[in-house]
């Protein structure tokens, strides 16, 4: 089935949703979800870059001639990016836990001791 540019639109939509979450949501956990949404959008974009329709996975030592294969590089990039995203999300969530312990709130508008 030909889906055209739909995946690119979806990934742009995910990025925009993530930015919306960061701008207008108040709960720190939701902000972390927003960051993850942007990350997912970018990862989807990377995967789409290397996709060729009806392509197969490029796992060969000696590639057979005439096979359509998806590009391996963007998949490697995406894997790396997912791992980095895991570390980032874990760190953000642990900060959120400690902020809850110290401030007793997760409302981003109330966590402003550092200003001016």
């Amino acid at each position, binding site marked *: 089935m030909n889906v055209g540019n739909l995946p690119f639109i979806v990934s742009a939509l995910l*990025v925009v949703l993530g930015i919306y979450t*960061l701008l207008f949501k108040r709960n*720190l956990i939701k*902000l972390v979800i927003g*960051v993850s949404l*942007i*990350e997912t959008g*970018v990862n989807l*974009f*990377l995967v789409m*870059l290397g996709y060729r329709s009806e392509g197969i996975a490029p796992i060969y030592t000696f590639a057979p001639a005439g096979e359509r294969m998806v590009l391996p*590089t*963007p998949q490697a*990039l995406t894997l*790396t*990016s997912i791992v*980095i995203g895991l*570390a*980032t999300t874990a*760190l*953000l969530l642990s*900060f*959120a836990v*400690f*902020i809850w312990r*110290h*401030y007793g709130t997760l409302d981003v508008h109330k*966590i402003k*001791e*550092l200003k*001016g």
Partner: protein
Amino acid sequence: MSALSVHAPVLLIAIPLLGAFAVPLIGKLGRGVRDVFVGLIAAFTAALAGLLAADVFGRGGAASVYVLGGKPFNIPLPSGMTAPIRILLEVDGMSAFMGLITALVTITAIAFSFSYWKKRSGGNMYYSLLLLLTAGIFGMEMTGDMFNFFVFLEVTSIAACGLIGFRVWLGRSQEAGFKVMTLYTVSGLFVLLAVGLLYGEHGGLNIAYLAHGLTGGLIDKIALGLLLTGLAMKAGAVPMHMWAPDAYGEAPAPTSAVLVANSQASLYGLFRVLFTLFGITVSAATTGWILIGFALLTIFVGVTMALVQNDIKRLIAYGAVSQIGYMLLGVGVGLATIVAKPAYGLVAMQGGIFHMINDAACIGLLFLVAGAISRAAGTRDLNKMGGLAHTMKYTSVFFVIGAFALAGVPPFNGFASKFLIYEASFKLSPFLAIIAILSSILLLAVFVKAFQGAFLGPRPASPGGGEAPLGMLIPMAVLTLVVIAFGLFPGFFVERIVTPAARALWFGRDAYISAILGG
């Protein structure tokens, strides 16, 4: 000797990285062993950076390629061109120059940390994160590949935020950690998006390969906008600097100095993107004037906000923000005039790049002093301390020298680089030089306030710990010597290390590309 300097680019990344993960194991053997181990790793890394710099500047700052894996790193394409296939590091004058800055800051910060954390047990994780941050910064400076640049950018983001929030018993450090991590991640993801766009358009990730294929079309321009904003944010350019005072202010004092080196590495990435990757394929005048606009805002807002701070580390942090503006101004003037290449353009580049190492030394010194006096006074509030000069004579002298140097008072090093920036930006437009000089004077006023608040006044009622311990004084003294040496002999350093770095950016695009692609 020669084998070490050949492999220096990759060892600069590998040694701190392996050291970082070995620290928790070595730490089981006891504090003393661990401290010696961390010190050795830092000293070896710094020596490697020095060796690499001697090697690169010995060749006049020409670009050289380091290949990970087998030797032929190019494959010929049917079209007659070659394409790089392996993981490549590419080192030219600018990379080696940044390596020197990082080495200087990290070794003094680590030496200072030993006595800064003396009273607390544990701290293995602290040194792990600090070495990880060092590895990430070196990686950003040595890599020749856009995606690896993004990976190292994220390594520094995560390690830096781990250090900012390291003191989990302080609520404010957790707040700073969350804010900075969110902003770092968002800017990093936009950088990744730009890398993806460039990959999709040109089918490669190597900087030289991409630079060869760039056409300046719409996709390239969008990628440039994403890279420019993302990296300017991580460098702390106004109006996207709000994380910087939080980060520098709430991190442990020795870390703040390394965080400034991290911001400078992002600035290096920005310059690499603008000069080497894009060059004149997009309008260099437009991007140059964007940098100059950022620079003026950064200089002015940074200084005026520093004037009203009462927390000594936050005050120095805003000072650090304003100094980023001077680098942007010098290099922005160079970029805006890169097509016509007038003589003052290169002078501006020299000034901006020379200011990077001067700023690293001065700001590093000031943050270390801030750490020492906040230990002695038990507070960072300028309204609550005073009279520290009675007990901390050496520390107050170091503070005065660092403050004078940063504010550009002759004969210290800040004046030498600001002199080049003033004169060159005056030739482009007198208005730029006026803002720069006015803000320097205001910065001196800022430090008069800090000195008056912290050091002058009657002897404090409850005398703190007295003079800082020797373990803190020696790193501060080393940085002070660097400040004085760069101030008294600017001609030597400008000629030997700054000019090759500036030329590598200003003229070196073709050499950088042909080092990888041949021809």
